[in-house]
């Protein structure tokens, strides 16, 4: 892969910009159940394809080739596009098999790492901060999250060019580094979620214990055992519930709503 660019370089920085921008804007807009991101990938590659394949039958062949099933994390697809461009530039139509191998070989692993980092972890960490501040009426967390998302988009813009210029080696090392980052970010995310349990779940016990002359508020008794005891039990309960067969998150939401109404009606919670 090192001496890929024996052929004359025809892809310019302008083309890379075009591909990057098209991938950001169109990668998911034609997402469909049949071929998922295929039309988006194809549309992003189109300027390069038109430049590389001057014969009509070759162009059509490669256009159809890029309309085959493709799906990955949108933030990671740029890496694959860059490698693909470099390969097609040097190999031409002969590189068709190699290109398909690269696309199908990379999209799964990149989706695994990308969904975890961009979706689960950034969503957990900054979503927690935004929601925690938000329930108290403070919009700072919302702005912070939007800034982070904007930075991600800017970074994403440069992935196509980076992987086009540095090739497969960079993609492999990036993926290794991303695995280490995933681990570290998971740890951070789970720490934040631990704090979230203690801060955003509102449970007020209205019931009180009466023994003889003395009335003790139920909430005080619970607080003496452990602060935020009920939120912990609630999360643990729903966590266990979700592990049951045939349990969906929608069912869990409905169960919690019904239980809330019952506990309010009998005067246990307020």
């Amino acid at each position, binding site marked *: 892969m090192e001496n890929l660019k024996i052929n004359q370089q025809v892809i310019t920085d302008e083309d890379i910009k075009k591909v990057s921008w098209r991938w950001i804007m169109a990668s998911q807009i034609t997402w469909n159940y049949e071929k998922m991101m295929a039309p988006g990938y194809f549309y992003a590659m189109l300027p390069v394809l038109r430049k590389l394949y001057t014969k009509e039958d070759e162009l059509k062949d490669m256009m159809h080739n890029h309309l085959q099933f493709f799906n990955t994390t949108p933030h990671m697809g740029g890496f694959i596009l860059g490698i693909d461009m470099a390969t097609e530039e040097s190999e031409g139509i002969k590189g068709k098999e190699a290109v398909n191998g690269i696309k199908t070989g990379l999209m799964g692993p990149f989706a695994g790492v990308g969904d975890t980092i961009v979706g689960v972890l950034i969503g957990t960490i900054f979503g927690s901060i935004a929601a925690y501040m938000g329930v108290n009426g403070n919009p700072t967390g919302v702005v912070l999250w939007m800034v982070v998302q904007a930075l991600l988009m800017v970074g994403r813009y440069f992935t196509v060019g980076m992987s086009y210029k540095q090739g497969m080696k960079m993609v492999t090392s990036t993926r290794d580094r991303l695995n280490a980052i995933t681990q570290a970010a998971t740890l951070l995310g789970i720490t934040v979620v631990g704090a979230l349990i203690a801060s955003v779940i509102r449970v007020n016990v209205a019931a009180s214990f009466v023994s003889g002359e003395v009335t003790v508020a139920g909430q005080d008794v619970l607080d003496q055992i452990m602060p935020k005891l009920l939120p912990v039990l609630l999360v643990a309960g729903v966590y266990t519930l979700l592990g049951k067969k045939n349990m969906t998150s929608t069912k869990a939401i409905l169960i919690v709503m019904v239980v*809330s109404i019952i506990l309010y009606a009998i005067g246990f919670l307020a």
Partner: protein
Amino acid sequence: MQIQFWQILLLTFLAFFGICENLMTNICAGQPVIIGTIAGIIMGDMTTGLVVGATLQLLMLGIGTYGGASIPDYMTGSIVGTVFAITSGQGAEFGIALAVPVGLLMVQLDILARFSNVFFQNRIEKAVDKLDFKAIARNTWMGALPWGLSRAIPVFLMLIFGSDLVDLIIKYLPDWLMGGLSVAGGLLPAVGIAILLRYLPTKDYISYLMIGFFLAAYLAVPMVGVAIIGLALAIISFKQSGAQSQNVVAVNGNSGQEDLVDGEFED
């Protein structure tokens, strides 16, 4: 408070924009806490939108459409919930209670939009045969219509016809139901957190969950403070795993290429 027609139009546009922006530049990212805040600004009461959005956000932390799975559309829910929380004067909790079923029902329309785009995919394939590049571009961008309209049309209809229904609900809603839904608004974040913990490798990292809980429950450390400690722990872990993987590379030489094909991750 009565909703103005220009507000309905703006909110309908927000629903269209919200989903498309999520698929494109991804800055608002279709997240209820962000979209709810914008809906609140349009309605002239940002805080209510923020609180409705933030509570719905807790129901879908870290959850995305991975591999094309449909998830409850609390983004659309946050728009509708914010509007009726403000127009009915019943407050954020009422809005949340309305937004949850809206978000759950909207899943069906998400599926419809994803299905409808097969039509444009076919048109693009036909355009390739004719080398009609204009048609390729047109049909690619038309893909925004199923996405946007599947959110905008229901929001428009709910805002036009919903207020009578909401008035009716408020008039006949018994106290036990109203109060119960308000209690539910406080408890529901627990469901979102539990779903998230099912996603994450919680059992391997349970000690960090306890650290985070301890800091917030016993020491009342605010969220950003907890995030700083989490970040410190993350850096330690990153450095340690970096040292480990260097050893592995030294042993294995450079065999990175093969494992790209059979990566350990599944989409």
